[in-house]
């Protein structure tokens, strides 16, 4: 940093410092992701992998996702006020499992349908024509979650008439 001696003492030239600071601010502003809580729930440790994923194409625009966070114990976080737990099958003919699963399916389906109605309304506000947008579910499942619990969510999504599903992963290749 340059400094000059004047009659009053030493004057430090702060301009380069200010330039650098402003550049740093710009970097953080550009790279900052202002996401909703449900999209960045840090309680969820996503699976980490190396995967070459195709770049987002034009067709993937106008996609409206509903986010579902599933913790390592199979609890669905942020799906209304009630904590829902995806059941585990203890043996082949587990009657309790089937019963709990049916209740859960109804709750998730009704939540999804409510969300889907909201999204359909948003799309119409955006003046999109019928068929120009897609509504899907993004499942942010913890890496330790049991496969059957993730599958149950995917199964419900399939039955709730959504257009697509996605699983969140941390791509180390990126």
């Amino acid at each position, binding site marked *: 940093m340059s400094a000059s001696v004047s009659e009053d003492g030493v*004057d430090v030239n*702060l*301009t380069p*410092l*200010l330039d650098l*600071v*402003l550049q*740093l*601010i710009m970097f*953080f*502003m550009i*790279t*900052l*992701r202002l996401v909703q809580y449900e999209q*960045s729930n840090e309680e969820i440790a*996503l*699976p980490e*992998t*190396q*995967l*070459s*994923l195709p770049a987002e194409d034009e067709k993937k625009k106008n996609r409206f996702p509903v986010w579902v966070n599933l913790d*390592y*114990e*199979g609890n669905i976080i942020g799906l209304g006020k009630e904590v829902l737990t995806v059941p*585990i*099958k*203890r*043996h*082949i003919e587990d009657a309790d499992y089937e019963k709990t699963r049916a209740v859960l399916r109804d709750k998730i389906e009704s939540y999804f349908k409510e969300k889907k109605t909201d999204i359909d309304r948003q799309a119409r506000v955006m003046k999109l024509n019928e068929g120009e947008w897609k509504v*899907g579910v993004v499942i942010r*499942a*913890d*890496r*330790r*979650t*049991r*496969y*059957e*619990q*993730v*599958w149950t969510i*995917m*199964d419900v*999504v*399939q*039955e709730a*008439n*959504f*257009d*697509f*599903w*996605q*699983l*969140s*992963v*941390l*791509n*180390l290749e*990126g």
Partner: protein
Amino acid sequence: MRHKKNKDPGSKGVNLSIIVVPMLDMSFQLLSFFIMVYSPNAAEEFIGGELGRTKAAAPKDAAVAGPLDKSMPKDPTKIPIKDIDPKLEQSFTVVLTTVDPRSKGGAIKPSATREGEKPNFIQIKSPANALDKEASRDADNLLDMATFVKEDLAFKTLEATLRKYHREITMTKEKGEAKTEKKDEVGAIKTAIRIEADRGIQFNYVIQVFAACKRAGFDDVTFTTPLD
């Protein structure tokens, strides 16, 4: 804001150098804010696909198009050949299981925790032997996780095996010519991989297998109903 008057009598105007200090203060505050809220989560990506539109009245176990493949029977050997989806015969199946497939059977082993568990075996069932139980016991297609020092090595071995299969399927050599890609009428290769896993397997391992399949060159990778 106060401005310092230029002491030089020969020049006109205001010396603006003094206003740099509060600006710098503000800049540092902003910088601190952005550093604190910065979260390098840009690596989060999504895998998945389109779903076939299903009618609400459709039976829940009906086969549907799309990445959620429920058409895979739990035991293909029990289905009459005429009823088997021709696609199945072209598909590889990768099975993640805690029980040795060579001695598989019996009820589900209850898990002590609510968390998932590690698979002890990863088995590849190739299209040719998918319906042949004896052939599916081929030792080359069965990875015993206990024999690998690191889990990563098991997935790399799986990837190498799948890559070999992919090359065999997609490349053909005729009359001394260079190998060329085999393609069907629409110019695509239909060979798919289905991932089957025990109910209690950790989701992470299913994703690792998915990634290995993709890295090996297979585009059509689907998940199937968890094994009972």
